[in-house]
């Protein structure tokens, strides 16, 4: 049991970092649709740089730069040129994925450095909890930190309040003297860098090595999890762990039920759709009107200005 929980938390770590990054981006009102491609290109770049430098850390830095650069293109073309974020994000999805396949072709099958395990002394000796939470490596601890800091920032800091203002009512934020587009640009870049780090985590920590199918569909799944989690860091993290559990289950069951192992990785998408339909249904809305607590727990509203361009006139 504790071993299973340990592997679920480890397997979900990159997904947690990536979904926190995308939550930050979308909370500011920008959609970075390119995750599927960003993730693949940063996984490849991270592996390539770590392979040549001989050190995993260099790979993480390079991957973060790649993720941030792609995000910067989406933010800049949206803010400066008023291009549609979805359109640019979609083109970059395909472009980055193909770039990764093309440039990474010669690296397939190579073995690179990996992130060393780092059990936390004393804490990892606590029975059960120690094994589950504190017997991991830096990537996993970073994923814990990402959840805590994102949540703290959103709901407990002044700048987090400004971030939400920019994503919900940019005109109001602008009237209060907030530089809407500057904030959006940097939050998008930050979110993209986190996606890049997640990419490197797949090729240097979770699966080791580069191949085209390394992160297949995980970028799309991350986008779905952010919606499923209603842009709330704790619920988004819960979604990521739920998917981690499905992945670990699929892995453990693949000898017993090979069919099920094929289906489980696809399951989150239909589940997310059902969840969205459920929350939208008049039945749920009636319950929500009577019990606001239930509505707040399950309901999810996208940031009101998500995907729009803010232009002061």
């Amino acid at each position, binding site marked *: 049991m504790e071993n299973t929980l340990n592997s679920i938390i480890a397997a979900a770590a990159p997904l947690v970092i990536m979904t926190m990054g995308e939550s930050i981006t979308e909370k500011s009102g920008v959609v970075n649709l390119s995750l599927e491609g960003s993730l693949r290109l940063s996984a490849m770049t991270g592996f390539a740089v770590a392979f040549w430098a001989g050190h995993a850390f260099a790979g993480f830095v390079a991957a973060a730069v790649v993720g941030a650069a792609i995000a910067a293109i989406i933010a800049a*073309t949206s803010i400066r040129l008023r*291009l549609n974020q979805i359109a640019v994000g979609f083109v970059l999805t395909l472009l980055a994925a193909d770039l990764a396949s093309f440039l990474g072709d010669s690296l397939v099958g190579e073995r690179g450095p990996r992130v060393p395990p780092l059990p936390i002394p004393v804490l990892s000796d606590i029975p059960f909890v120690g094994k589950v939470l504190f017997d991991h490596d830096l990537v996993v601890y970073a994923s814990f930190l990402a959840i805590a800091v994102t949540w703290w920032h959103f709901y407990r800091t002044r700048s987090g309040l400004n971030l939400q203002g920019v994503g919900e009512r940019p005109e109001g934020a602008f009237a209060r003297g907030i530089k809407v587009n500057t904030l959006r640009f940097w939050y998008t870049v930050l979110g993209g860098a986190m996606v890049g780090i997640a990419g490197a985590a797949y090729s240097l920590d979770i699966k080791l090595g580069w191949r085209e199918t390394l992160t297949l569909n995980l970028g799309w799944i991350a986008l779905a999890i952010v919606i499923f989690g209603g842009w709330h860091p704790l619920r988004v993290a819960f979604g990521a762990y739920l998917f981690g559990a499905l992945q670990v289950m699929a892995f453990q069951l693949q000898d017993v039920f090979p069919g099920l192992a094929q289906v489980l990785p696809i399951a989150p998408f239909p589940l997310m759709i059902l969840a969205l339909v459920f929350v939208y249904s008049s039945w749920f809305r009636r319950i929500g009107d009577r019990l606001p607590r239930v509505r707040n727990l399950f309901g999810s509203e996208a940031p009101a200005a998500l995907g729009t361009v803010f232009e002061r006139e």
Partner: protein
Amino acid sequence: MRSAAPTLVALVAALAVGIVLLVLVGAPPFEALWLLVEGSFGSASKISATLLAWSPLLLASAGLVVTFAAGLWNIGVEGQIVIGAVAATWVARSLPGPGWVVILAAIVAGAVGGLLWALLAGVLKTHGGVHEIFGGLGLDFVAAGLVIYLVLGPWQRTGVASTSGTDIFREDAWMPTLEMLGTGWPVIPVLLGLASVVVVWLLLRGTRFGLRLKAVGRNPKSAALIGIPTNRYLLGAFAIGGALAGLAGTVQVTAFQHKLVPSVSGGYGFLGILVVLLAAFGAVWIAPIALFFVAISVGSTQLDLRLGLDSAFGGVLQGFIVLFVMVGGAWSARRASVERAARGEP
């Protein structure tokens, strides 16, 4: 299309980036680029292969023009192609009778299959509150899972089940080709593809449905205010887009692969989105752009065979072209408006 100059600059820039990347991986850049041309137009059989790949891309792109006109991001197009192919395969495998009956029935079944799959995404949007991007993606995944299930399960090929696909269809259920110049020409698929572009162009330009659909796409709220039943128009757009995508799937199985394979869509759905983005959502330029793109795709398979390069280079080139054209067009439009403002014009 926007004005020609920025587009031309963007094309040259994309080509330059492509050359740099080829040098980076240690490939002879000009030989590689020549292979793209030679691999897609170098002989009668290669031209025929390019035209055969052009057809489903035309069909998918024409359908996407309709959904884009309604303001919809039909990312579910890949799944609609797949379900169209599944429906056509079902007919080709199970319907007895003369070949031409089977082929006609497969065409109808493919279109209906794609239509229904698209309506599912449509209903999720209009009545379930699920954005079409995510409903569509989810249905793409489900369709991909369904094909793998069919190929490994109920429709597995004789002998050992494998992801290489079902058994080959009986030969009179193949879409017939015109024998000429020593190769078979895919006349029916090309005609279907070109007809779809013309029909969509006429639909959006000259009919009440098309004009109102575009009104819905531009501003659904004001369209609803002047009495247009918005949801019905959105579902109509999904239905047309899905039917054409389903036809693309039919062409893939009955004219190209002659069996159902997991990669049946050929990626033509997503490539179609790039084509329509490059055509700036209009139907007029679809045919030449689709031909250009499909030539890159078909030609790039030669890079793998002849130079040992990854064939993803074709996608890299297509991606840079679309990105640069979009950015270049928006940038020059922006500059023009700034200049107008500086001269004090509105």
